[in-house]
């Protein structure tokens, strides 16, 4: 990866003392990424970087933004156990980034949002799901394409109930993604008349998950909702070990743990019949092929679509604003995301824009329409089902689109 990152830094004359955040821009749209290369979410880094890289490749092939190729600087967000994200942001700001894509972890984003938005730069996360960001003070500069857990939780909860699971167990990773989604599922499921007999929030760093599963087993739910990231593999193993295979209990998964190629190594039929919800209207297959073109080693695709959409949206907003300054981009982001002629790729959209048409970018991760808080307002959730080979087919069982707020 990393093609086309050569930034033109010659224009970087000394910054004038006590200058207000740049509002004009320097003519080049500079993107910074603040994504996990290390730390506990390091496995999310490759797909996210690949998503951004893919978008950038397409944008620059289509002529760039404002007539110039888009520059990009990659940095490491680490995780919250080290404070390197802050240093990374310093670097990106020093390099005059106009928008920063990241971070994966809500906690990390929270720790740097003041710094980023304080500098008048767009803070655009492909993965934050914490509901704090809806109300956070962000000067209107914070956006996210993250999978909206309210809608997904609702769809998933509904699915669980509709499948006739009167007793449900929820096993959720203990962070804002896991607990947010789990709360929504629990609410929907309970409303729907089923009983959540066990809700387990686990520490993703725990040495093992046998106690968590033993607890679940004691409650013996009919349906089991697994919410988390790739450590779900361990839980699936543990479920099999403790005699709760997918053939006896109906498992449900979510976007965070569905797109992991490691399941293919499980014995045939381990995940047969498991259902899951995944945001995005399109079949992910073609997109995945494109991503593999960027990074052939990808084994997990979580948040790649969201990252891709983030980069595209920023670029389109910059085009619409005719400026690469963060504040200007932020002002246009909502506009390009909704209300206009629908278009799906940067090239298509930018051509429409050049023709003076109002556009509505429809992303890989969903329709992406921003509300005032910078959160996506509409989303499409696909429902998939695993087959005997532990993979799910290209085609979803069904798609549900809805307003996230309800």
């Amino acid at each position, binding site marked *: *990866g*990393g093609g086309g*990152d*050569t*930034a033109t*830094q010659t224009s*970087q004359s*000394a*910054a004038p*003392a*006590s*200058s*207000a955040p740049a509002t004009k821009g320097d003519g080049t749209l500079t993107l910074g990424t603040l994504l*996990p*290369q*290390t730390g506990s979410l*390091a496995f999310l*880094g*490759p797909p996210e*970087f690949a998503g951004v*890289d893919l978008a950038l490749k397409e944008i620059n092939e289509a002529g760039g933004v404002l007539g110039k190729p888009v520059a990009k*600087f*990659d*940095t*490491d967000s*680490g*995780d*919250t*156990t*080290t*404070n*390197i994200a*802050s*240093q*990374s942001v*310093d*670097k990106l700001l*020093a*390099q005059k980034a106009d928008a920063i894509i990241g971070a994966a972890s*809500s*906690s990390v984003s*929270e*720790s*740097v*949002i*003041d710094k980023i938005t*304080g*500098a008048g730069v767009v803070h655009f996360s492909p993965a934050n799901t*914490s509901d*704090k960001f809806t109300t*956070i*003070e962000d000067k209107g500069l914070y956006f996210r394409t993250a999978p909206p857990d309210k809608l997904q939780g609702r769809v998933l909860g509904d699915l669980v109930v509709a499948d006739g699971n009167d007793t449900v167990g929820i096993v959720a990773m*203990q*962070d*804002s993604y896991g*607990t947010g989604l789990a709360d929504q599922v629990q609410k929907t499921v309970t409303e729907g008349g089923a009983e959540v007999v066990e809700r387990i*929030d686990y*520490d993703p760093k725990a040495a093992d998950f046998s106690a968590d599963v033993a607890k679940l087993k004691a409650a013996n739910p009919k349906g089991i909702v697994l919410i988390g990231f790739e450590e779900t593999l361990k839980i699936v193993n543990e479920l099999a070990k403790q005699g709760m295979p997918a053939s006896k209990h109906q498992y449900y998964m979510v976007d965070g743990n569905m797109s992991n190629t490691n399941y293919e190594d499980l014995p045939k039929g381990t995940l047969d019949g498991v259902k899951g919800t995944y945001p995005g209207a399109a079949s992910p297959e073609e997109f995945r092929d494109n991503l593999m073109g960027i*990074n052939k080693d990808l084994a997990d695709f979580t948040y790649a679509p969201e990252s891709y959409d983030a980069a595209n949206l920023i670029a389109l907003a910059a085009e619409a604003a005719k400026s690469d300054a963060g504040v200007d981009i932020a002002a246009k982001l909502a506009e390009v995301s909704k209300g206009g002629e629908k278009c799906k790729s940067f090239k298509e959209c930018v051509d429409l824009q050049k023709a003076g048409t109002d556009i509505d970018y429809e992303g890989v991760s969903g329709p992406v329409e921003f509300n005032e808080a910078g959160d996506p307002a509409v989303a499409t959730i696909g429902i998939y089902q695993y087959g005997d080979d532990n993979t799910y087919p290209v085609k979803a069982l069904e798609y549900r689109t809805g307003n996230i707020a309800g």
Partner: protein
Amino acid sequence: MDWITIISTTLKAAVGVETVLYGIAAIGINIHFGYTGLLNFGQAAFMGVAGYGLAVTVTVLGLPFWLGIIVGLVAAVLLAILLGIPTLHLRADYLAIVTIAAAEIVRLVFRSVQFKSVFGGSDGQRGFTDGFYALNPFPEGDYGFNLGPVPLFFNHRTMWVLVVGWLLIALCCFVVYLLMKSPWGRVLKAIREDEDAVRSLGKNVFSYKMQSLILGGVIGSLGGFIYGLSYGSVQPDVFGTETTFYMYTMVILGGAARVLGPVIGSMLFWVLLVLLYGVLSEAVGAGYITFMDTNQVGAMRWIMVGLGLILLLVYRPQGIFGDKREIAIDAR
């Protein structure tokens, strides 16, 4: 290669917020470990209870900022007492494991779903800094100067944090300097060497250890405040064992039982971290290094940091300021 950015970020890191907050907390560790020989591996917990004390007081209870600071300090003192009473009678290695365990307990409780309404779960708390920034004497804008072509600027918020932080560091160092030259400090150092001997000379070892634990813990808590105030938020995982390990590294890098050791160690650590990353990521970005991709730069940085640490200590086991003679004395 964007050398200007690399140099600028590196130089800023040398005095930046992270250097300050780790440096302060490391001064506390130096009191514990360097002077008294207490293996406190739970310094992060002192930072944590302080940060959370402040955050919870302001956001959950809605009390003013300075009250939050008081609550944080009291929390740190209480933690010290709570940790100290049972463990200070034990051998040093047991104190280590108990403090690690206590720190983990504190962290896990902060991040737990059970107490989410108080501590905010894994995302922590935010929105408690207004009181602090209301005191900011710097009008909005950037402050700094150009070092040749290298711009060195901080915005007004950072400036305020840095001024307060470095003043605190200066104060702490001064206090440590005074104390460690005094008979009080002598007792601490003696306890580090052999408790029984000190006891036989009529000093209340437990009381001194407790004083040391509290003092170091309170200084550590200042680091926690700086963290919360500069980042505008507190998160549980920041206060993990890793943080404490890094602070130990800083203390040893600078030279244990030296007044300025932890501060210099912290500077060195962050400079190393930022410089290596700047050079590596720029080299990869500019295509000078082709055997790595973006995803590996972060890892490569830590590999180099690991190597750097190893080399520094191999060639200067006593740290920057340490006394070679002291190392040569067999502590066994």
